[in-house]
């Protein structure tokens, strides 16, 4: 109850503050941006029951302030504050699913989590463009992924065509009373607030109560448009005392791991080179220092064959890595390699096509087809490979008040197949005051592990929206969507989505 009260109070304060700032016009610009999404649908278990009802209501509220320090000039320093708060409720949950004493208990489930997606002070181009900083909860996007932390990031740009970036803070994690989400933690472990659980209850749900320090740096090129490279390093540390084994030890007790431990430590490098009349080369590499393995690399070569056509090739490799507390790191064997060719084509002036095709290669230690014959002494150095063929075809036609888009895919291999596509039509009316959406989808799929799950599915979506310039909103849209899916596995399934989005900038 107290928790709900706190959330309500915080939301109210946030909204009140935002409105006060928006109403009171100053030299700085203030922006409020809000979204409201209500979704209604159901998830059916492959066994028919349970039927999980999803009654989701998600609200985000952003408050941004621009030009806090001085009169803004395009290339001058600027100070701004950017924040977004999110309330993500699911009224379809049953109360017993959140009750640790119930047989239906699902660890970590919350009915209405409130989180601060980001909230930071953003200083740009101080000291004649040399110094930029961010202070607060912020996203980081680089070769190492999409990540979030609470802390400070300082960027020092030099006249010598490179910049140095340093970050220091705490990884954003769920389970802490910090209005945060678990989205950005390394995977492989289930963590959260264990208060209310007995010691042996849900042993794999690890305690999360202490901040996880994170630090890193980056070196990147700066100032040239035809080349960009970035070297990133990042380390995160676990500090909570967590259960070691889900089983009782020989003395009948449970052991704990304590002290500072590596959660993740990775090094990434990326390089992009462009030549306008010729093409581009993009590459990236991630080395997991904890696992001491290359966890990802990509290389793309694009040739700008004509002003209207680009053809290229891509090779990628991915080996999933997990949090240092996770045992799953030690189950990793070989990564997945994919190789594709792709082409982009602009036809006429408003028609664009993109197609790709290639192969995905899975490798195993030991050949699955011969392994069982030598059960006692299998040859693990004999690599087994399986292949998926994959292809995509996309197209887009834009007319002046709408577009038609086609997205198709075909993937087939040892895991099964997926074939199908979406045909989407967007159209605006009355100069954009009204808009509409229609999507038709047809997919056929087969799961090789469960042959009874093969199906062909047809779906359609109908949607409409209105974007009035009412009240003092700079931008607003109210929309609804109706989605209907049918296949022989689940029969008919429906989903309704209602959205309201608006922003005020003054």
């Amino acid at each position: 109850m107290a928790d709900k009260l706190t959330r309500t109070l915080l939301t109210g304060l946030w909204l009140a503050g935002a409105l006060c700032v928006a109403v009171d016009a100053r030299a700085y610009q203030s922006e409020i941006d809000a979204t409201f999404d209500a979704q209604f649908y159901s998830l059916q278990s492959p066994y028919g029951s349970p039927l999980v009802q999803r009654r989701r209501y998600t609200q985000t509220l952003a408050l941004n302030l621009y030009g806090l320090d001085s009169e803004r000039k395009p290339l001058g320093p600027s100070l701004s504050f950017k924040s977004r708060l999110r309330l993500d409720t699911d009224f379809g949950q049953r109360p017993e699913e959140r009750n640790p004493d119930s047989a239906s208990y699902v660890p970590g489930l919350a009915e209405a989590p409130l989180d601060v997606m980001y909230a930071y002070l953003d200083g740009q181009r101080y000291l004649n463009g040399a110094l930029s900083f961010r202070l607060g909860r912020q996203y980081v996007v680089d070769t190492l992924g999409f990540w979030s932390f609470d802390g400070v990031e300082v960027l020092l740009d030099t006249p010598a065509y490179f910049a140095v970036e340093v970050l220091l803070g705490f990884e954003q994690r769920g389970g802490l009373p910090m209005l945060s989400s678990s989205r950005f933690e390394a995977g492989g472990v289930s963590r959260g607030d264990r208060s209310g659980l007995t010691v042996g209850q849900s042993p794999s749900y690890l305690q999360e109560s202490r901040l996880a320090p994170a630090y890193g740096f980056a070196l990147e090129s700066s100032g040239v448009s035809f080349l960009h490279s970035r070297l990133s390093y990042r380390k995160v540390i676990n500090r909570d005392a967590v259960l070691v084994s889900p089983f009782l030890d020989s003395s009948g007790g449970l052991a704990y791991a304590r002290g500072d431990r590596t959660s993740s430590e990775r090094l990434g490098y990326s390089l992009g080179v462009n030549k306008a009349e010729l093409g581009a080369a993009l590459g990236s590499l991630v080395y997991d220092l904890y696992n001491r393995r290359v966890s990802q690399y990509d290389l793309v070569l694009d040739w700008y064959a004509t002003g209207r056509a680009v053809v290229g090739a891509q090779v990628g490799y991915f080996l999933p890595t997990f949090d240092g507390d996770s045992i799953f790191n030690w189950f990793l064997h070989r990564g997945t390699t994919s190789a594709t060719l792709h082409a982009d084509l602009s036809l006429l002036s408003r028609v664009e096509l993109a197609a790709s095709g290639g192969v995905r290669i899975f490798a195993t230690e030991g050949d699955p087809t011969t392994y069982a014959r030598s059960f006692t002494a299998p040859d693990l150095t004999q690599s087994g490979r399986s292949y998926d063929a994959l292809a995509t075809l996309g197209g887009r036609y834009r007319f002046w008040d709408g577009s038609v888009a086609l997205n198709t895919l075909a993937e087939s291999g040892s895991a099964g197949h997926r074939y199908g596509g979406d045909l989407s039509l967007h159209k605006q009316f009355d100069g954009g005051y009204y808009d509409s959406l229609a999507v038709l989808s047809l997919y056929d799929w087969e799961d090789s592990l469960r042959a009874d799950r093969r199906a062909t599915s047809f779906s359609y979506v109908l949607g409409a929206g209105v974007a009035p310039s009412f009240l003092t909103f700079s931008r607003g849209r109210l929309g609804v969507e109706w989605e209907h899916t049918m296949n022989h596995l689940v029969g008919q399934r429906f989903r309704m989505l209602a959205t309201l989005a608006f922003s005020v900038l003054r």
Partner: protein
Amino acid sequence: MSGRVPGGASDGSFWLLALSCLLAFCAAWCSRSPVARADAASPAPSGAPISSASGAAFTAEVLPARLERPPLRESDRPPGAVPDDHGPSLAIFPNQRIPLFFNHRRHVKELGLACTACHEKARTSHAASDSLLPSGARCDGCHGTDHRDLREVRPAASAPQGQCAFCHVGYSSAAGNRVATLLLPKPNLRFDHALHGARHIGCAQCHGAVENLELATRDQMPRMRGCLNCHQAPSPAAGRARSECRTCHLTDPTGRLQTTFSSGTLSPPRWLHDAGHGPDWTLRHQLVAGNDSRFCANCHSPKDCADCHDGRVRPRRVHPNDWLNLHPIASRQNQQNCTSCHREQSFCLSCHQRAGITLSGPFADSAQRGRFHPPKAEWTDGPRTPRHHAWEAERNISACVSCHVEHDCAICHATAARGGRGAGFPAGVGRGTDPHPLGFRSRCASALRQNARPCLVCHAPDDPNLLDCR
């Protein structure tokens, strides 16, 4: 909202009919797409999704009827222009209407006039929005006309070059001494002619060889590629030829680039960071954004990233319809993509537990609910046939982790001393095997030193294997 229909197939005729109606409706809708309007030379309305590279329908200049465009040599075009580029971005330089006969070659090459003889305001202009076209009065000295009062312009008495129709396309004396309107929209750009002139940057360096042309059109406006010949300096560099986008592009009150104009929408060209936002952009943006996210931040706010990567509403561009049924196969086929937005042990696991498809959780009793995976004899027991779970785990452990907690794996893979069925467990069917990959022993010491917790899940502290790693 959902209901399983056992006899769903018997309803097929109804849904076939519904599908037919829907298809017919969509076909009719598409067929009335205003192609004619798309091809018209009118500017797109605000927000209309016209990319900078897709404006050929708009690039046809409205040229005077009797004026033939002289053959244009590529060498006369501005630096950065390439064949078939459809001219500069419409979002930056909207369409113009110049109903004039004018011969630059005659004035510059033959008569020896400098550009600034007519475009004199270029010397002092600090804003791209300044009109640098000479007024009609500028022509009077040579042409013998009188443009001082535009309400009562007087032609020369007899000289043919002083007659209105000599310059003004479509002029007819019978039409009330009126000339066609010249339309020259302001470019959506920052540009300081005076500053560039002071640095001895000649007109041709941006506008190409105008002296070889007759009428100079929108095609002579600068290309970004040409600008970047000089603008290649980092922010703190001396001088002001910085490569930052905002050096030239307009920004909105939030500090980001203004991308929507009445004449089109600004979008990066493919040759800049390989960032063309084509139909496959969703699939390939990862490398571009990972390499230089500050470049993306010129136009995008954190919200744009979060809407998909940390979103709560399924993005249609990423997940097609019926994703709930499609996603199990997709996750096993395409593991690379899932983890860029989803965390297996929070996002995936809790939903799977609620849906009753996990080994742990409220519906863990497989005897009651049925078995999710292939039969135990194939999936978990030895010998390890091609349908054994070990191969699936090796191929794509991420898919396993989206349903299984470590307890599920440790049951068999942990050593007997830790309560599992691995090393130390009596040999035979049901005994777990060593799950470590080849070469693991060479890495285990470092791993153990950095974080002993995962080791201790399966190995007792006095396990000889663990001691070896120490």
